[in-house]
């Protein structure tokens, strides 16, 4: 065996473990999923399933609950993108300003992000039900503070609040990295030229953190779109199925209603939407960065 061949074999040995597992865990099931979504597979043996064309896709689009879940997820994602980025950026500006205890604040603001969505949802469930109800009665503000999880609109905002509480810290970290890379000299020069804090923020900080903006948008978008854990533990889709997000709809289609092929078709639609949004978003933000 010559040296070159030997080198190739060792390279292969280095790559094979990851590649083998990855192909079996992600690639094969993904391809299977696409195939299954065009059949009448019932969740058991695939043998005997028939090809049914786009029937599952038609059924998915005909399912009002799925359409509603998609609309709600879109609303949720839009609200989340705006709020998470505003809160995250504000926190980042706060902890990069000249204040004491910076690291303490950073640590605290980031903390919720380390706790899983499932557990966060449970903690907040107590707050939105028991604590809110009691607080409303005691302070005579029952109009604002009541059991939020009993009312569809309030339950939606409860999901948003928990989501912002969880994700803002993460986005903050992204903005901090970007703000700290702005050189002190630029800021000082601007001060000498007579720029006030607001002008400096608008003219220097904002344009320079544009890349961080791209990343944060992407992170918030994909995390909000895929939200499941908090949805499950906080509202479990309720009241009356009014807060069911797409992932939960896919899950219940498969595991509660046993419509596996239809659930798979829904999940492929879900994937396509995520892919399209991501590609568009990366395209737009990259273009804007260059223009600036």
């Amino acid at each position, binding site marked *: 065996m010559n040296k070159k061949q030997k080198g190739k074999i060792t390279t292969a040995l280095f790559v094979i473990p990851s590649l083998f597992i990855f192909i079996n865990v992600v690639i094969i099931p993904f391809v299977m*999923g696409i195939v299954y979504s065009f059949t009448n597979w019932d969740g058991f043996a695939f043998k005997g399933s028939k090809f049914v064309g786009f029937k599952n896709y038609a059924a998915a689009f005909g399912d009002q609950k799925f359409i509603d879940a998609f609309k709600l997820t879109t609303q949720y994602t839009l609200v989340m993108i705006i709020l998470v980025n505003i809160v995250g950026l504000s926190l980042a500006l706060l902890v990069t300003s000249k204040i004491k205890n910076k690291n303490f604040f950073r640590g605290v603001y980031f903390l919720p992000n380390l706790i899983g969505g499932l557990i966060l949802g449970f903690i*907040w*469930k107590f707050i939105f039900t028991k604590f809110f109800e009691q607080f409303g009665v005691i302070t005579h503000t029952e109009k604002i503070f009541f059991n939020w999880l009993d009312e569809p609109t309030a339950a939606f905002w409860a999901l948003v609040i928990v989501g912002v509480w969880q994700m803002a810290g993460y986005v903050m970290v992204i903005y901090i990295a970007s703000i700290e890379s702005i050189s002190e000299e630029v800021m000082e020069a601007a001060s000498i030229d007579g720029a006030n804090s607001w002008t400096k923020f608008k003219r220097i900080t904002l344009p320079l953190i544009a890349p961080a903006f791209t990343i944060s948008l992407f992170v918030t978008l994909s995390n909000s779109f895929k939200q499941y854990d908090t949805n499950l533990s906080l509202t479990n889709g309720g009241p009356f199925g009014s807060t069911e997000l797409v992932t939960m709809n896919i899950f219940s289609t498969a595991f509660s209603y046993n419509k596996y092929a239809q659930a798979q078709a829904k999940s492929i639609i879900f994937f396509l939407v995520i892919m399209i949004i991501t590609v568009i978003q990366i395209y737009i933000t990259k273009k804007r960065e260059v223009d600036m």
Partner: protein
Amino acid sequence: MKAKFKASTILIILGFMTAALTLFPMYIMVVNSFKSRAQIFTDTIGLPKSLDFSFYITAIEKMKFLKAISNSLFVTIISIVLIIVFSSMSSWAIVRSSSKLADFILYTFIVTMLVPFQSVMIPLMQYMSGWEIKAINFSMIDTFYGLIFMYIGFGSSLSIFLYHGFIKSVPRSLEEAAMIDGCNKFQVFWRIVFPSLKPITVTVAILNVIWIWNDYLLPSLVLRSPGLRTIPLSTFYFFGEFTIQWNLAMAGLVLTIIPIIIFYLFSQKYIIKGVMAGAVK
């Protein structure tokens, strides 16, 4: 000077207020884990009348907390170690081989980061349940090695992406010198390359720890025996059973958060740095 002093005071006050707001849910959770049912009924916000640890003792028993925590530790640690070993090795081989096939493999890993878990979960379970050898009790479903195998599969995309970006900036000269000195590729990798990847290894480890430790969905599909439940699973079943007993439920939640807080206190610096590095890539 006076105006400046004022501005920074306002910022500090703002900082503390936001911190208080962030920690408020944790406060509510902790105080209510000690309260009697009667006190929760009238007063959820005040301090408990006495430090009654009985709910904690009951929660530890009912959740099988010690079992759940050792299950979670086992799954998380083994998965992380294997993810680090496998993905650092493949990234290095991919970067150094610079063939078209290697590029193709790399892009496949990266592009599939877009695929949401929900799009593969149903066929994955179907496919994995076929990997069964009854004679030797081998099964991917309801076993830790099956779960770990799937974690490696889902974790390798991001990890390879991060390692790849880092290895590209590591100079080849040392590796080449070692090759000339007669080291084989494995020795070169483990003695020279891997130690120099430490910063990115820390990032990969932290991002995967946060994800795997908190993950609910995958274990909920793979694990069936109650004895194998990880922390998120046992919390889920426990909470479903005891939501009416809020004090007990809150004590259970406090227990699940304690390990995270301990981990955070010891490695806060690395966590924030790691997340920064991971996110910016």
